């Protein structure tokens, strides 16, 4: 069993700098957990504490049923893959993969079995006799993964392993790592700043900011139900459109009035929640994903829709869709519309969105209301 338990984990550096505040999480065996967030959010520090490369300032870390806070990295039964890795230039791929086991004095026959098995999993058997300089970037990355696989660890820890690859190769290796997880049936903890990597690879993702967990959820849930404004903006590309407004009662209905006095109506459930929680007259943020904004000519105006309008600043044709960039209430709004739209820069556009696609966040705490 390779479940991980992180209980009240803290990391405080000298000078009272808090890198990770209070990290609590149970990771089940065979899960693929992705820690994601901007630079300085504490994701790498958390991974390094799991690895044993950083001391834990407070809290408990269990791998399996063992408390490992004071256990040196080599005894934790983990394997790490880093963003920067080096291969031994004068060794073959086989020797590169075998070297770590050789240092651990593993018998030769066992090394051979493990290296060949890892090579088979990574589909690099035909490369075993090659030297690193004769390998492509992707092949080298596989060898780096192979060095971790041969250790047969309980937990794989990966710290931005794809960041040094070009965009095309990164997409390819993303799939390879997901397949690897399925084949190995082991727990993976993966760190990235890239929300696309997080969304596509993780069974659950942990979104972090300033040393705090913002949300732990499945990628779909984090996208559909962001816990706060930060998660709403961080997950999804292009990011969620957010406008500030105030909750008003209008003709017997509860609505949000945004800065240009546009009234945005809400679902009955949203109205009820806002009213019951005393939000009338209070500031809120209203969020709508770009794909939920549609030109009003494309879909007929209906009662469960609200709309905003603005002047198109830029129209970007992406092939399958077009991004319209416009300014609403002084804020940039992006709409992902049909690629055949006739709208161009300088045109006025009315964008409608369904009430149930609206996200509401508290104006002070920025936490999700509905």
């Amino acid at each position, binding site marked *: 069993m390779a479940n991980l338990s992180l209980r009240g984990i803290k990391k405080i550096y000298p000078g009272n700098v808090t890198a990770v505040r209070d990290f609590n999480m149970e990771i089940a065996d065979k899960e693929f957990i992705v820690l994601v967030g901007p630079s*300085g959010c504490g994701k790498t520090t958390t991974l390094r504490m799991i690895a044993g*490369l950083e001391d834990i300032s407070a809290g408990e870390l269990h791998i399996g049923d063992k408390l490992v806070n004071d256990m040196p990295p*080599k005894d934790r039964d983990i394997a790490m893959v880093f963003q920067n890795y080096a291969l031994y230039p004068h060794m073959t791929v086989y020797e590169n993969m075998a070297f770590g086991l050789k240092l651990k004095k593993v018998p030769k026959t066992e090394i051979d079995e493990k290296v060949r098995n890892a090579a088979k999993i990574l589909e690099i058997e035909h490369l075993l006799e090659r030297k690193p300089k004769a390998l492509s970037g992707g092949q080298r990355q596989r060898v780096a993964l192979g060095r971790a696989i041969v250790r047969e660890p309980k937990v794989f820890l990966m710290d931005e392993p794809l960041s040094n690859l070009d965009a095309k190769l990164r997409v390819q290796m993303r799939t390879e790592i997901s397949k690897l997880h399925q084949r190995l049936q082991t727990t993976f903890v993966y760190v990235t700043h890239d929300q696309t990597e997080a969304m596509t690879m993780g069974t659950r993702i942990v979104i972090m900011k300033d040393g705090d967990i913002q949300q732990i959820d499945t990628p779909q849930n984090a996208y559909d139900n962001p816990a706060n404004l930060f998660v709403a903006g961080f997950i999804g590309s292009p990011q969620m459109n957010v406008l500030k407004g105030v909750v008003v009662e209008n003709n017997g209905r509860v609505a949000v009035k945004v800065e240009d006095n546009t009234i945005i109506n809400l679902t009955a459930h949203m109205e009820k929640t806002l009213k019951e929680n005393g939000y009338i007259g209070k500031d809120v943020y209203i969020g709508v994903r770009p794909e939920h904004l549609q030109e009003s000519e494309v879909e007929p105006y209906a009662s469960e829709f609200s709309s905003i309008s603005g002047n198109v600043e830029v129209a970007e044709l992406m092939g399958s869709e077009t991004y319209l960039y416009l300014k609403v209430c002084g804020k940039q709004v992006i709409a992902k519309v049909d690629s055949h739209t006739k709208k161009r820069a300088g045109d006025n556009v009315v964008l409608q969105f369904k009430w149930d696609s609206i996200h509401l966040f508290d104006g002070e705490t920025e936490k999700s209301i509905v």
Partner: protein
Amino acid sequence: MANIVTALSRLSKTVDKNIVVVNSQNVCLFPEVLPAFMSFKALTESVSGIYQGYRINKIDTTNSTFYVGIEHSDSDDQRLIDLIMLNISDILDRELTSGASPVEYIRTILDNARIHGVNEAAKPILYIKGWTALLENNREEYESSDLIEIINNTINAGLVFEYRDRIVIIGKDEDKISACKAIRENILTELYIECLIAVGSDISNELELIEQYDCCEEILNQVKRYSLGSKVFNFEDVYTYRIASSIDPVIKNEIVQKVFKNKISEMLNGEMETTIDVFFKNNLNLTDTAAKLYIHRNTLLYRIDKIYKSTGFDLRRFEDSWLFKLAWIISKEN
């Protein structure tokens, strides 16, 4: 050195022949000064030939090359020449490294330099071409032999040995910084230990090694004093820190107070601290910093503006940024 001179002098008298011994760094070991009618260049280019009446031979040892001139006569018996060469080789081995291996010899001279300093009259003897680096790791549960094996397999190493809980590396790769980064990455990958590597300059003999060892030690001290992390550093990387550390403590305090006005804690959250560090590392370039931090340029501008509002220092202005950086460095001093 005195022993070499005495031993070679005795040999010269015994065989009744003048002898000249120089090393590949143009140091004359015997006699104490190269005879005026000889030049180092011509002598070293005349191996197996006759130069200014001397038969020139070469002795290669693991770490050095010596050129030996033996006064030539047409009646010389080759067996006598061989015997003289054998004697000289033996003297050099015995006297220069006290019969020890080059590593043991270097350890001894490093020890002696620590205790007595470097004798100004000392002449370099070994030929050790390469760059120097000093590796330190914070874990004790690993054998240094494992570290040495990883290093030897990662770079084109001249000599790698343990000395006072650190590993001394003499490498030959063209790009020493990349080579040291590769060492660090391989040690981290194989053993899961972080290393700090100080990279010195090129050397060609043991006296320069002593000098560069001291230089690397100074780098390590500065890195630890300012908690710069476990990475690869060279002397240029820590130069500003050396200046900061030499400032009078009263003035240091004044600088920190002037810049931060007791608001240092606002800067020291993970995100803001990373932003400041990366902005300085990227030469105050907004685009590069934003790219490195994976944030929008406007987000970066917002953070820099926040610093300005809090301290009155605009990091985009050189006049403000240099003093801010100095205060930033001082505030991190251990």
